[in-house]
């Protein structure tokens, strides 16, 4: 199982994260924690939760970066950046796993850890370029985003709620879930239209999750004028401060 599935259904479930819309509110991170600490990965332990060095297991974390103006003349921006497992197509986190606890599901491409067979050797976390695996010291096993496998097929949930907790919670709708293996799916369309990209493609992990880049900041609206024309050039020049356009007859 540690070997990648030989046949794949072609289905590649994953997330599309819109960096142009993410306000960095951490809603996705906390709802992920909340769902998963009582779900498949229960518990996501918190060490020293009320002490000096609180450190818990989270499957999704939201970073913020600043981009200083580059040579291409972009104006500089602040970009919020949620990060979780990308459910890679060539996930070394799976192939390095000595026990088979880490595996990629053939049916939908979700990368999971079997908490009953993981020995906690941590090698998979070394193999993940995206920092997406978090070790639960108390539990002695590795934990990671499950793509909410216990939600997306869950018949105890309303059909429209069968989506990951993080997507369900995200207030501005910056997270999208779907089948990236289906070129016609909403998420695939979004990726095409917005130039969705892979993180560190050079490493060859072929992430399924995609990021939509922040749009170029618009100083001026595309067609907008740069300055208003004075309405009444003569009056303005005379500096009398009163405007003739005020003489329009207006009915209340």
């Amino acid at each position, binding site marked *: *199982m540690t070997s990648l*599935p030989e046949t794949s*259904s072609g289905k590649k*479930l994953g997330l599309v994260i*819109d960096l142009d819309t*993410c*306000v*960095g*509110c*951490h*809603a996705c*991170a*906390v*709802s992920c*924690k*909340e769902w998963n*600490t*009582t*779900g*498949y990965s*229960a518990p996501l*332990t*918190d060490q*020293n*939760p*009320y*002490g*000096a060095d609180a450190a818990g297991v989270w499957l999704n974390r939201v970073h*913020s970066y*600043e981009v200083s103006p580059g040579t291409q003349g972009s104006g500089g*921006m*602040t970009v*919020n950046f949620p990060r979780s497992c990308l459910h890679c197509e060539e996930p070394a986190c799976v192939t390095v796993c000595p026990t088979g606890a880490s*595996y990629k599901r053939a049916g*939908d491409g979700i990368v999971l850890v079997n908490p009953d067979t993981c020995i906690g050797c941590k090698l998979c976390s070394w193999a993940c370029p995206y920092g997406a695996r978090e070790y639960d010291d108390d539990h002695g096993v590795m934990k990671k985003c499950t793509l909410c496998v*216990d939600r997306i097929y*869950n018949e*105890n949930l309303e059909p429209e709620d*069968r989506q990951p907790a993080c997507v*369900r*919670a*995200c*207030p*501005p*709708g910056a997270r999208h879930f779907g089948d990236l293996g289906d070129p016609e799916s909403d998420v695939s369309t979004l990726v095409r239209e917005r130039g969705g990209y892979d993180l560190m493609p050079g490493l060859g992990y072929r992430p399924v999750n995609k990021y939509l880049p922040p749009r170029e900041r*618009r100083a001026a*609206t595309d067609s*907008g004028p*740069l*300055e*208003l024309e004075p*309405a*009444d050039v003569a009056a303005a020049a005379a500096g009398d*401060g009163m*405007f003739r*356009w005020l003489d329009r*007859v*207006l*009915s*209340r």
Partner: protein
Amino acid sequence: MAERRVSGEPKVETSPRIADEVKCTTCYMCACRCGIKVYLKDGTVRYIEGNRDHPVNKGALCAKGSAGIMQQYSPARLRNPLMRVGPRGSGEFKEITWEEALSTAAGWLGEVRARDPRKLAFFTGRDQSQALTGWWASRFGTPNHAAHGGFCSVNMAAAGLYTIGGSFWEFGEPDWNRTRYFLMFGVAEDHDSNPIKIGLGKLKQRGAKFVSVNPVRSGYSAIADEWIGIRPGTDGLLVFALIHELLRAGKIDLDYLVRYTNAPWLIIDDPGAADDGLFARDEAGNPLAWDRETGAAVNAKLPDITPAFHGEYTLADGRKATPSFSRLVERYSSKDYAPEAVAERVGITAATIKRIAAELAQAAFEEEIVLDIPWTDWAGRRHEKTIGRPVAMHAMRGISAHSNGFHTCRAIHILQLLLGSIDCPGGFRYKPPFPKPIPPGLKPSDQVGPGQPLGGPPLGFPTGPEDLLVDEDGTPRRIDKAFSWEAPIAAHGMMHMVITNAAKRDPYGIDVLFMYMANMSWNSSMSVSSVLRSLTETDPKTGDYVIPKFIYADAFFSETVPYADLILPDTTYLERWDCISLLDRPICEADGPGDSIRQPVVQPDRNVRPFQDVLIDLGARIGLPGFVKEDGGAKYPGGYADYLVNHERAPGIGSLAGWRGEDGESHGRGKPNAKQLETYVENQCFWHLKLPESQRFFRHANKEYLEWAVSFGLIGHADQIVMQIYSEPMQKFRLAAQGHGERQPPERDRARVETYFDPLPIWYAPLEDAGVETEAFQFHAVTQRPMAMYHSWGSQNAWLRQIHGANRLYMSRAMGIRLGIGEDDWVWVTSAHGKVRGQVRLMDGVNENTVWTWNAIGKRAGAWNLAPDSPEATKGFLLNHLISELLPERGGGYRYSNSDPVTGQAAWYDLRVKVERIAPADARASAPVFAALDRLPGLEPPPEILRFGEQFKDKSKGGA
């Protein structure tokens, strides 16, 4: 989505049972009041989810909302009523029974009421039961009541209510679905947190332009199409320059102004006269306009007249008058407000200001929206289309928390009016019960006498000096000095001044301080140490505390608890009934009104009681009218739930608008319905009404809407609400200062009132600037709300505190380089008032003259049942230590409060500081350091490891 199982792969239970039970209620991890569904398993909260059907959040849930579980199971929850046994601040308490607690409180309160009710100061903080607490105060008979609005955003509320009859805050919202251009001033998070995020998401999807004016480029500003990194406190100048540009170009919606505003109303031009600058009125009191058709002054409220917008006209009495609009034009077309003239002070280039003005005009006038929605105006004229100017604005504490915020906010509203974009498609839209008459008809009430209730509500909206609460000699009647000459339209009171004033017995001493849900001895006071001094100060003669008795209701071990004498421990929000009422701060949407409740979804496992129950119980014990029956028995023996259903504020009007009447069929008005709460519970704990399309726009002048609002009890009459560009109440105060009328300010306040009560918006530098060397104190220092933390109470939350366990002082990278301050350096931040030590983080996206930090992350060691060496205490810091409640002495030795001179809004963001690097060896921790608080009686040491969720695991595996 169907799952394809592949043999050989481990079996995963993909359809586990999630809960035994799901209960709807309303979130209270912040004041946004989203609808939530609480999943319960074995009686424990397992999962909280945003309610899709709820009008506020439509399914979304923020970080705090999800973390509600950790609040519910926080180790900082109070467990028993407490009575202080050691000195204040020592944290020495004994646990007492509720009977002891209630009889003690009733004893103290009853005695005060019988003697001098205003000797009780009853102030509430993050409260959403103001309809109850305000009423309780008025029944008690003390004018000394308010909630936190005075330190929060009364500038926004007052400026809005005196200008457009609605306001920013959560009283209105941009038309997220239609606006093309959204201009946001000084918002980091706001009360409408989820709606704003949802709205911004919609803007992004539609590609509308979003411009954020904010000294800091984070959060919402980070995703803005354009970030305007303004210098704090100068937004008024920016807005004036925008108005200047629009005037210069004639890009003004005159049709809107003529119909909906007082722009054409004539102003008496008779310097020195007692009515100079007031509206010229006819005998019936109607304002006049100059009708160009007939060449005469006519009732300005009549339809179909053709009023003049400029010029000088002669009134019947021979005096001169000019349309108010010409005053506006005169003021803002002045060269003083040309973009070039303000650019340097606001820190934005003139070209940018001009471009924004051009873009606003372009969006408003070239991208007009026409909806096929017929509507009828106040005069009964039918309009086939609803026409909108798709420019919307929103502003909050970046504007309001400055001492010039009232005027700046009014300027923003006027800018919207000039563009014709209030309550139109694509513009800023009211949420019912707004719009209200300008200003709303309530007036603040004063004490009547011992044992007597007030004649009206403690808070209201003065329209002239006659409405102030002052003695003959001008001495304030209220402990916080609200509605005095110092802050005449302090419509939300001035909670930030209560403790300081009471300790100085200025204007008088009080006997009982009663507070609820406000962390006054930490993050919600300016100058923490002086507030602590005030709370512990003793009278040298008697040895008693100067504030003799302090009753406090909190649910958690906050920094304030150790300073109170009697602690009434509250439940959590998941353990009680609550009501988000139309009488208070409702959850309405632009499309229609709504209200909601909280129901107890879990039972308390501690000896705690809902504060509302306690308040009602106390009301009955001390025999407050309205809380006892004629026979003296409790009127609401069933506590708050009983009150919610049965209390009527006016006939047919109660706390909840939905499902009224004996049959539960009427909404708005109707007799109490015994099954009302059950019906709310059946309906997911909220009620929401969508108005017909014809009542969704121009509601200030929409006949159908206005008539409906009257029938519904939202407003008293269906007259058009004419928006007030020129504010007559302001001029009335100014005239008094100029020596007119019976009630005039004392000499000390005259010049101040005259200056700040300008009927058209003015700009002045934040007041602190006048008191400090701005060269030396080179930086403006402000705070922002972190999205994943709510004031002080988020830090007890095991999940949220991992995200924000400590705060930094953020400074511009360029400035850091100039001052030799590097990333992670420790610095002293010094104001004219105090010093704090913190650690620096450099960033590009901040105005160079500004430093800032996250609000309320710093904690006092030991509080909230956190380990004393927690980062909140060792690295976190508050800017509050740097802020003074009082401005430096003026002539005569008087010190005004550090507030807006019009509204009394606390001027948190006027702060000026300098920043100095500390050699690395000399600092490892934040300062100032206060003695660590000891754990309160009854609280257990917090766990060292948290395995929340483990309890559900085996069961879910068993497959259910």
